[in-house]
């Protein structure tokens, strides 16, 4: 039981990482990026292809990250340029179209079957109080916590963080103030692409790894981001880890194992409906 919960930590950490990216692009660019995990999956499959072409391990991984960052930056710049004046639902619609396009492109380029993903990390296991933690688990958890801490501190304390918030709140004013909007937007999207690539590479070796199923990792990640109200990085991390552990515990119970992916989602929606009972009239209409 405990081991089952612990083995959910790796997917939990990955959901948390993806959730952080979702919150980041939503807060900084006003985009609910449903294509996020598809970008990561695209990069991961590019890495595999390169390896099969005979590239050595490390350059292939680095190239994979480069692909993820580049695709995300192209997406971000297109959003900024063509949909800078659009409302949030329109931008969400664009990300849905991009998701559809990437899913189709991915199945065209990489096929619809699961690929064996090599573990990007050495098979190190750490034993803490009788519970076995894999290197992937430790990295996923540590990365999500560190990135959440960095982002929270940066947005709250640093000059760059303030500039980013200015860009998010009033893009035109920010530009008139001489803030390098384009560079900052690029940086935000590049970060989301890189983190997403890393997250997919962490989980691909231990999960069913079709292009489509990896792309739909965005679903638990959005659930985590919803728990963080698309604002708080910490709550998102907590939500992601919670969802991962809950899924894993459900998967351990044979009677309900088939529903391990959907029960946490239903739980999140129900929790949110109860929590957000107060009528709120905000900018989100």
């Amino acid at each position, binding site marked *: 039981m405990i081991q089952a919960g612990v083995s959910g930590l790796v997917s939990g950490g990955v959901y948390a990482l993806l959730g952080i990216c979702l919150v980041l692009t939503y807060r900084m660019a006003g985009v609910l990026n*449903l294509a996020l995990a598809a970008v990561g999956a695209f990069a991961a499959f590019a890495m595999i292809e390169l390896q099969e072409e005979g590239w050595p391990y490390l350059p292939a991984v680095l190239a994979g990250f480069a692909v993820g960052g580049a695709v995300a930056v192209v997406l971000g710049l297109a959003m900024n340029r063509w949909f800078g004046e659009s409302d949030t639902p329109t931008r969400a619609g664009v990300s849905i179209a991009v998701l559809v396009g990437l899913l*189709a492109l991915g199945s065209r380029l990489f096929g619809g079957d699961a690929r064996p993903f090599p573990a990007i990390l050495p098979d190190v296991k750490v034993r803490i109080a009788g519970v076995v933690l894999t290197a992937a688990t430790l990295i996923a958890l540590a990365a999500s916590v560190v990135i959440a801490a960095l982002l929270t501190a940066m947005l709250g304390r640093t000059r760059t963080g303030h500039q980013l918030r200015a860009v998010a709140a009033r893009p035109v004013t920010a530009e008139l103030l001489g803030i390098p909007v384009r560079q900052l937007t690029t940086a935000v999207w590049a970060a989301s692409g890189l983190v997403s690539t890393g997250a997919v590479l962490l989980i691909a070796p231990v999960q069913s790894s079709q292009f489509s199923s990896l792309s739909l990792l965005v*679903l638990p990640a959005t659930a985590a981001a919803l728990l963080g109200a698309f604002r708080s990085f910490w709550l998102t991390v907590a939500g992601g880890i919670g969802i991962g552990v809950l899924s894993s515990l459900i998967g351990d119970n044979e009677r309900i194992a088939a529903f391990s992916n959907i029960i946490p989602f239903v739980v999140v929606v129900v929790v949110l409906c109860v929590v957000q009972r107060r009528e709120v009239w905000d900018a989100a209409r």
Partner: protein
Amino acid sequence: MRLVSPPGAVGRSTAVAMVAVVAVTLLPLGLTSYWLFLATSGVIAAFTALSIGVVSGRAGLISLCQLSFAAIGAWAVAWLSMHHPDLPVLVLVLAGGAAAVPFGLLAGLPALRLRGVNIAIVTLGCASVVDTLLNRYGIPGVDDGIIVTRSGVFGDDLYYFWLCWGLLLAVVVGLALLGARPTGAAWLAVRRSERSAAAMGLSVPRAKLTAFAAAAFVAGLGGALLVVQLGLAANQSFGSFPSLVAFTVAVMFGARFPEGAMFAGAATVLMPELLRRVDVPADVGSMLFAVGTVFALRQGSGVAEALRARASRRRADAALGRSAAISGEPAPVALPVAVPVAVPVEATRPGARRAAAGSARPGPADALEVRDLTVRYGSVVALDAVSFTVPADRVIGLIGPNGAGKSTLVDAVSGFLPGHTGDVRLGGRSVTGLSAAKRARTGIRRTFQQGLAVPELTVGQYLRLAAGRALPRAEVRALLEFVGGPPSDLVIADIDVGTRRLVDVAAGLAARPRVLLLDEPAAGLPADTSELLAARIAEIPVRFGCGVLLIEHDMTMVQAACSDAVVLDFGKVIAAGPVEEVLAHADVVSAYLGGQQLGGGAEAGGPGGQQVVAV
């Protein structure tokens, strides 16, 4: 700007539609059985597109699980035909549609709490829930090879095509009828702005749930028709990915409109067929749809909308050309001048004259009484123990410099700031605990500075929606003439922003409120029109028996329309009483006008004049 469609223009689009309907009806007579099969599939796919048009296009809620509703319809049909093989096809199909409705309501429930784009996430989750359930339990009969048989005349593919096509037309007509009525108009209002929908007394939850229910019904019909057409329907037809693709296709073609949904249905079927014939893999089709969708979103309209806009422009050009030929110059665009008319008047309450603004003792005729209203945002006190009354027979001006809290006050009174303290009473009864929609239904109506009238509706439809009751045609006309508004058959999208505010005033009055809160109704109006509006506002208490609170920057207008005024500065009432006295008050002059001399006809000159105010 298009004022009135020239006669014959509407006739022409109706004629085009009739010809198209007849053409599609006769189409299968000339088709081989293979193409007939494709044509039927296209019609069925249009149901899904139409359902997305309802929930996403009309109500503005991104739904990514419409094929899950179709799956429920298919499941229900498969189950029914397994256990009751003698049921007529039509009954099976309608049962399939009905079966999807509860699930639509279920999927719509979170939309009541989660706003905006979050609903896209929830529906994507719903799609994956239904995916999992289908993979686990499957559609009845699929594994055992038991097929749904088409009994009776619909066993013939030709008649089955006509059944699908007939049902599609019936749904289109049904949605059109619904769209002209408050139920369907409320969807558009919610998409425009949930706040303004609630301020009209519409139940936002109800609008969202009915949209989801109607969309689920339509999608369920599609799923049911599909399983009856094929006999067996595979789970994969209803998965998350097909739902995502269906959403993009619906956006690309503008499925809010019937022809858009039909284009979308046709494209869904024809695209793979065409690609197959030129030996291009089918997933290229999804990529093309994705690109087309991004393009449509960039343009701000799907294919159907773009075609309609072009047709409407051509009509307008033709109309202008015609009138230019008569008068020698382009048709002048002017508001019709209001003629005084008899408007149905609620009995004015006798003895109302006693009470005045700011009076400490509330009389029975006070429409609105605000007592110790305080609003805090964190440590900032936006409104500090504000008290005043609006008698039923007066127009009270609410003035004050920018940031004084005027709009916050209107928000709090109309129920959009549930955290406020103090008491708001309407006709002597407290409404403090009530939601915005309930306050509106009790008799507090407001307009918004931004002018949030629903662009897709005609002026008349909008007034009926706002009235919340049957509104006779004569009353609509009388209301519009009273405010000097446009003709009732104009589409609001075709009216300039200033005139839309007049429509908003008429819409507020249409509800026969006890008190009407007008937030800068004259912004964007030309001077002579706003003069006319001021005179009309002054008449509202007598004609409609309702008190008015008027927020206005234009001092001429305040002087013309109001008997009394309340002055806010930094969230506090600094003066209240008859307009002339209040405007002469030393504190008001210094706070509001920065020491500027205020003569009889002097004006602060709209928001621009605010720059003289010292902070």
